[in-house]
């Protein structure tokens, strides 16, 4: 291989056909005289534009079907013609350098065009954190296993994105299990019921963290008591999930406080009090209609034995557990309501330091997350200790600020230009590399960018996982 051209941070390399190079691979351009090396990543593979290649191919096209024949080439020159026809041009991006054996992120020099050697470079040497205290194997690169430290997710904002059926949830489950294994608290907003069997292997056997995984299904084992939720969380839910006007919310606060003072805070009493409370008819109607919606969803109960115990939640989360809120088949209002309630409660617990932090995994968050939460998650909630991982196949539904602030991005295949436009707003990698690599990623392969790989973008074939597959689309034809 030889350097052909450099422009900006792009280096073009001429590569003979016998060298097997794929998009995402790393190469080391080593200048032995300078004792330096340039680390570059292949972002595109093209055919070298050699003189006369068009004529060659035109002739092949013109004659391949209509003219049959053979070549007598006594000196076997034609093998060289084939080599030249298949010679490739590798478009590479400079990712760093090695200076006297030490890696650096910047490279402000150029290696020799003639004297440099170009060899494949195992990027795991720089990107992995094998020596970390909480190692997790993300998968395999082309050269080796990529092991990272799950600590790299701590305090971070992450995105897992890619089109349907490429392995997003699989990676997400891998991260959840690794976090739980290392004693981290996780809350999973599971819109498709994909995580419900995360504690069980493919043969239904429990895995080592099975006892620390709790699946909450609304209406079944997830119902709330008014006292358990508290006024603040309840009111937030009424305002944000059910659009209760501000004036009405003030009246509702008064009703709640009165009942709380009299020790009579239950659903029936609340219902009755709303109906007879002395306020403007329109305010009463606004509160009553929303309260009835809540009742209809059967998410609240006065029976303490049936009500979700937030202190239990606190305790288990502090020990390192995963709570999965299974929102499969739930009505959109119900989803928004549950999420609002949980996030509000979570914020409360984190503010009061009852919880240190929570790793929140939000699948297709646009279905249940209100507009104002996006910025909140990136800023305020992050400081409180909510470290979110968004998982989506609709990248344009995630706000641009999230892409810009994301610390780690796991990108699976996208072919649609509109989707690529959305994900290319990520700040940790240039848009050109991202587009070129992501477009051609095979299933289960993802481009990992960010702190978790020490800012060396790496293509990883995600580690297989012994977890029961759920969330597959129901089909009519069974064969």
């Amino acid at each position, binding site marked *: 291989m030889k350097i052909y051209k450099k422009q900006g941070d792009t280096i073009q390399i001429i590569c003979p056909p016998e060298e097997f190079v794929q998009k995402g691979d790393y190469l080391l351009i080593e200048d032995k005289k300078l004792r330096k090396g340039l680390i570059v990543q292949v972002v595109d593979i093209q055919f070298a534009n050699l*003189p006369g290649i068009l004529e*060659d191919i035109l*002739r092949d096209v013109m004659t391949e079907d209509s*003219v049959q*024949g053979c070549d007598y*080439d006594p*000196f076997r020159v034609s093998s060289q013609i084939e080599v*030249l*026809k298949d010679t490739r041009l590798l478009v590479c991006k400079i990712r760093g350098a090695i200076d006297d054996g030490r890696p650096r992120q910047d490279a402000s020099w150029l290696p020799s065009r003639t004297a440099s050697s170009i060899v494949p470079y195992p990027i795991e040497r720089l990107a992995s954190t094998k020596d970390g205290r909480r190692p997790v194997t993300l998968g395999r690169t082309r050269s080796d296993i990529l092991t990272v430290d799950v600590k790299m997710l701590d305090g971070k904002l992450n995105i897992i994105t890619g089109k349907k059926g490429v392995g997003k949830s699989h990676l997400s489950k891998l991260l959840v299990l690794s976090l739980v294994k290392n004693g981290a608290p996780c809350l999973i907003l599971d819109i498709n019921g994909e995580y419900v069997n995360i504690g069980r292997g493919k043969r239904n056997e429990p895995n080592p963290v099975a006892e620390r995984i709790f699946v909450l299904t609304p209406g079944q084992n997830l119902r709330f008591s008014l006292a358990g939720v508290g006024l603040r969380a309840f009111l937030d839910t009424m305002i944000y999930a059910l659009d209760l006007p501000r004036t009405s919310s003030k009246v509702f606060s008064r009703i709640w406080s009165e009942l709380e003072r009299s020790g009579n805070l239950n659903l029936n009493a609340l219902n009755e009090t709303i109906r007879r409370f002395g306020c403007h008819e329109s305010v009463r109607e606004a509160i009553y209609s929303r309260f009835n919606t809540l009742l209809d969803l059967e998410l609240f109960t006065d029976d303490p034995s049936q009500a979700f115990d937030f202190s239990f939640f606190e305790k288990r989360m502090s020990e390192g557990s995963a709570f999965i809120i299974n929102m499969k088949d739930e009505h959109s209002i119900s989803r928004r309501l549950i999420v609002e309630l949980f996030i509000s409660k979570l914020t409360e617990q984190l503010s009061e330091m009852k919880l240190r932090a929570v790793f929140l995994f939000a699948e297709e968050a646009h279905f249940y997350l209100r507009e104002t939460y996006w910025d909140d998650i990136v800023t305020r909630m992050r400081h409180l200790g909510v470290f979110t991982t968004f998982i989506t196949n609709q990248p344009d539904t995630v706000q641009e600020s999230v892409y810009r602030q994301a610390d780690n991005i796991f990108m699976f295949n996208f072919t649609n230009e509109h989707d690529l436009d959305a994900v290319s707003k990520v700040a940790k990698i240039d848009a050109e590399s991202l587009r070129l690599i992501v477009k051609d990623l095979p299933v289960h392969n993802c481009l990992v960018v960010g702190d978790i790989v020490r800012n060396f973008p790496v293509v990883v074939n995600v580690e297989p996982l012994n977890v029961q597959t759920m969330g597959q689309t129901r089909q009519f034809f069974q064969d």
Partner: protein
Amino acid sequence: MEDSKTTLLPDFLLDLSSESMRTINGGSFEPRELSTAEISLEEEIDEDPAINLKDTPMLSKPTPIPATLGNCSVVAVDVSSIRVGESEQGLLYSLRGALVWREGSSYNFTRCGPLTFHVNDAIARSLNKRSYAKEDLTYSAWSPMTERVLARLRNTLERWMQKIACSRFSKGIVLLDGSLTAGTPDNPTVYVEELLNRARENSNVVIAFSKETRLCYSGKRITRLLDEADPPCILDIDRLIAPQFPSTPVRLMGRVYVAKLAQISFPFRVDIDRQLPEESGIAAVGRLINSDLVEQGYPETLRLAHILSTFTANEVLAIQRHLSIEYGVRLAPRFSFRRSLFGPFGTSTEAS
């Protein structure tokens, strides 16, 4: 044809190629520079001045080519040469020949080469030893002799392949690129005579098509004589040409015509074996029209032979790579005084 493809290249040319290339072993060589914008790599030999034919009112009218029934085999031969670089002792040229034949409605080909030659004094001496011509070649780099040596090498391969075409096919038409004029030191009569004899023995008719002609009549190229004519037609201009070569060794082995073979087509100079009766020759052109595609007035078989033998820039690069691997030649740009003195202003387009 495939079984006998090794005979398509004469052993002595293979040996000559190997021997000449051994003389460059391990030396340095300046590869021909190629650019993606280059349109043609063909070695254009400077055109000689036009030959003006004597104006005569006796010029006959074009003869319509009679329609014929039945098909015959059509076989065509073309050879291309290309300069691939330059050593300190000489130039490096490659040759490649293509033999294309049409049987029924299918086209087939056998392509031979490339053969690369280090054109220097040694190769000139080897050619002199084999030559039927009286004139000896003495090579010196960058002399007009280079073209002569190359022409002789190319002619040797071309005539050899043409002879094979005339021998292996029967009752067909053998198409050649160029004319049936011979008798120059680099194009000896003996080769043309031999191939025409072989053709006649096998009941083949040899027809040569010239893409370019220097012959002029009344101040115009002879091909313009058929501007107004209805195709397919042929015009005998042989009697105008013969007086041009009264006492030279050059011999017109073919009867010379201008032919326009199809509607919306170019007229070409066409030479047909002189020893055939005139009517048989014209009938053979009719058979050609019936047996091959003649888009733009040029036979498809001959067009394919040209396409298959021509070198592309990519192939020149491949040959250069082959030379560096096989003969250990070092690719080194030639020192240029012009570049050295004038830098970027020492362009090749500047007048010397």
